[in-house]
């Protein structure tokens, strides 16, 4: 016990030291030789009026020329005051005596421009394209900046890696706990290094609004911060180029959050059953509000609670069944799933619930007699996943293929299967009920879409539609089932990993294929019949996904299907794994000796992702 304590303490210190080293020589290597911040010396101006403590532009072609010491600028910063966003640019002469221009925007939400330039020049001209901008405190910042959060994140990542290696026997034999630890730690670190607001993940601004208005139907009181966060152009544009500007933005959002007198309409009178998936976000944000925490922290709380729920469900899914534990471990820690679990998206809990349901189904296949717990876990998980997205409810029909001998009696088997079938039909009815009973809102995002006309086309020209489906899946199938967006999709934050995305994807793909083909399933449990069943279900759900998008998101009579995204196939990825995994006649279970490799590779992919976000991103 004492040795373990000493090991952890020493590991933390080593990690801390290495983190400081990385912080200095990786993130601050450009300024090591300078390490100075100074007021810029103004050598020329045009259409600039000197005022108390600053300057004011008097035309749309004003400029200030400043001298650069040591001919290097890491960051240029100044304070400004203007009622709108300001457009400005920097002109300088580079080493080859060419005139270079950098166009910049600064938001009126903050009053500080801190732009990373990394240019070598003896002077630069700062040109403003707006009249009446007040400018103060122009500084050149070539100082080493110790980012405490980054050091903290690196320390944790390195410490966890060393602990995983040192105590590998424990982690191998407790795969569910290992998953939970890695998921919570890496997921939380990922939340800290990512942009804190929305427009990171697909439709996350809609999910934020729905989570915020969880219990409301007509309107909600909200603050200015909330309105601003929903505005894509305000939050995601290049007005916030550096970490410092992002932090200024968050500080400003926190300051203006106190007044909740604004009211926005929700007008969501549609049935509430599909809102249950927002419960973790709602509770997280409410908890933050209750504790009187800042606006941004409340958003983080919402994401953290969703991550916790996701991790807990998968923890139980791994624990549930030995046959699927490795597969669920790998799928649960895929970059796409961790990304979705740490953003305003309900896809992650849907995926987790379906993984749990498939684990319980395999458990039922393995048992001589199925118990109440297995059926309830199976049914309730699929219900959780299907209420927001009814396309996954056909998974319930797996129960119909269980032999009656596994139930208490034939009569009992028939009644249970009948009720499951009724529940499936009720869930499937949620496809059509909204069209029949009507809702409120209207989606103005769509173009010339018309679900009933589209349905009419499918019914009257089924062969054309089948041909369209086949063509669609031939061109897009692999990308959707095992493509980059399935295994390592990070939506709109992809720019942070662009350079390495192909590498990350290849490693993820090879890793998943390795896990599949190095495993072995018992043919008595996963028989050809069961594999066939999984294949049919996989195809049916895929067709439902594409048909739902064809009806609701594609222009009428179009010869392609719009809106089908790889993340819709994440919940059924385990089915694909089970279909592809080889089976054997003997009782040989999954190999145990590659579990450490699986843990380390899953962990390293997440660590690489977090590191890339720290280096290229703007969240830290």
């Amino acid at each position, binding site marked *: 016990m004492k040795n373990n304590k000493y090991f952890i303490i020493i590991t933390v210190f080593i990690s801390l030291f290495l983190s400081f080293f990385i912080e200095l020589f990786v993130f601050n290597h450009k300024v090591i030789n300078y390490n100075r911040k100074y007021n810029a010396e103004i050598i020329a101006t045009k259409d600039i009026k000197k005022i108390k403590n600053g300057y004011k532009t008097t035309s749309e072609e004003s400029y200030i020329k400043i001298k650069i010491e040591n001919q290097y600028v890491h960051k240029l910063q100044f304070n400004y005051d203007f*009622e709108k966003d300001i457009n400005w640019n920097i002109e300088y002469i580079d080493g080859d005596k060419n005139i270079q221009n950098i166009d910049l925007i600064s938001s009126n939400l903050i009053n500080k421009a801190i732009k990373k330039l990394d240019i070598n020049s003896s002077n630069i001209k700062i040109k403003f394209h707006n009249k009446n901008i007040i400018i103060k405190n122009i500084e050149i910042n070539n100082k080493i900046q110790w980012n405490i959060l980054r050091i903290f994140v690196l320390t944790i990542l390195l410490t966890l890696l060393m602990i995983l290696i040192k105590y590998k026997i424990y982690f191998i034999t407790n795969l569910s706990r290992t998953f939970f630890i890695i998921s919570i730690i890496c997921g939380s670190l990922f939340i800290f290094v990512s942009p804190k607001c929305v427009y990171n993940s697909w439709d996350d601004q809609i999910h934020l609004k729905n989570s915020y208005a969880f219990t409301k139907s007509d309107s909600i009181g909200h603050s200015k911060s909330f309105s601003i966060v929903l*505005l894509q152009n305000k939050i995601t544009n290049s007005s916030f180029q550096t970490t410092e500007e992002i932090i200024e933005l968050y500080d400003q959002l926190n300051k203006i959050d106190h007044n909740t007198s604004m009211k926005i*309409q929700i007008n969501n*009178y549609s049935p509430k059953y599909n809102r249950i998936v927002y419960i973790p976000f709602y509770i997280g944000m409410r908890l933050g509000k209750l504790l009187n925490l800042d606006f941004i922290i409340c958003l983080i709380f919402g994401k953290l609670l969703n991550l916790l729920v996701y991790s807990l469900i998968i923890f139980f899914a791994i624990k549930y069944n030995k046959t699927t534990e490795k597969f669920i471990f790998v799928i649960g820690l895929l970059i796409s799933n961790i990304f979705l679990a740490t953003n305003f998206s309900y896809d992650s809990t849907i995926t987790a619930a379906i993984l749990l349901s498939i684990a319980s189904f395999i458990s039922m296949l393995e048992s001589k007699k199925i118990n109440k717990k297995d059926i309830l876990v199976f049914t309730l998980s699929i219900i959780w996943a299907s209420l927001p997205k009814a396309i996954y409810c056909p998974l319930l029909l797996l129960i119909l293929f269980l032999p009656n001998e596994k139930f208490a009696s034939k009569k009992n088997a028939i009644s249970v299967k009948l*009720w*499951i079938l009724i529940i499936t039909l009720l869930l499937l009815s949620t496809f059509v009920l909204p069209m029949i009973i*009507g809702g409120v809102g*209207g989606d103005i995002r769509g173009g*010339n879409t018309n679900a009933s006309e589209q349905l009419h086309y499918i019914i009257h020209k089924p062969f054309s539609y089948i041909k369209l489906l086949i063509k669609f899946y031939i061109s897009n199938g692999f990308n959707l089932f095992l493509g980059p967006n399935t295994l390592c999709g990070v939506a709109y934050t992809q720019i942070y990993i662009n350079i390495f995305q192909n590498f990350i994807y290849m490693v993820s793909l090879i890793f998943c294929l390795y896990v599949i083909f190095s495993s072995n399933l018992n043919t008595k449990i996963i028989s050809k019949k069961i594999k066939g069943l999984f294949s049919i279900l996989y195809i049916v759900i895929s067709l439902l996904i594409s048909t739902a998008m064809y009806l609701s998101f594609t222009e009428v009579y179009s010869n392609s299907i719009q809106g089908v995204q790889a993340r819709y196939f994440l919940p059924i990825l385990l089915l694909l794994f089970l279909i592809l995994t080889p089976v054997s006649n003997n009782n040989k279970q999954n190999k145990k000796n590659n579990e450490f490799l699986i843990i380390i590779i899953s962990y390293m992919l997440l660590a690489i992702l977090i590191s890339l976000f720290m280096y290229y991103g703007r969240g830290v």
Partner: protein
Amino acid sequence: MKKYVNKILIVALILLGILIIFTLVFPKDKFSSTSFENKDRGILKKLYNGDSVIQTFYSDNNYNAIGIAFANYGEFLEKGQIEITIETINHKNIRDYKIDVFNIIDNDIYYINYNFKKNEQYKLVLNIKNNIYPLTIYTTDAKIKNAELKVNDKIKKSNLFLSFMYRDKDYFNIWYYLFFMAIICLYLCLNRGEEK
């Protein structure tokens, strides 16, 4: 203990059955919406202080609210109001509204309560006041009966993409009751299987 649980669940089943009948006989009201056909969706020009938009249209039902799809070019509109007047074409039932622009969400529909009568022609007038940043309204090129759009007194080919809310009977709770009944029946079957 299990017997008590089973009895409670049977009582719950009966209660849910009663609720289904109650909902069928005494349904609550809810709001549903309909809108103009969304064809070749576009937007008006940028609207600034002093701009006015007039849309005439025919009400084909007894609607309770009208929705206008605003967009604000991704800006936070802190200052500005939209003065709205709704009246029949022969200047009856005039109602005025004032919306603060900061309550408008980009690319979303804003609803105003007004009781429209079936088969009446109406006029919707919007006047933009005091805004710094522009806003706009979504339009549709679909043919709308008896509809005409004017922006600053100039007739436009398209019409505003309008949405309308109306009261409807809410029977959806029946789905919830049936759903819970199915889950309870499943649970009772499983309990019976366990007893065997």
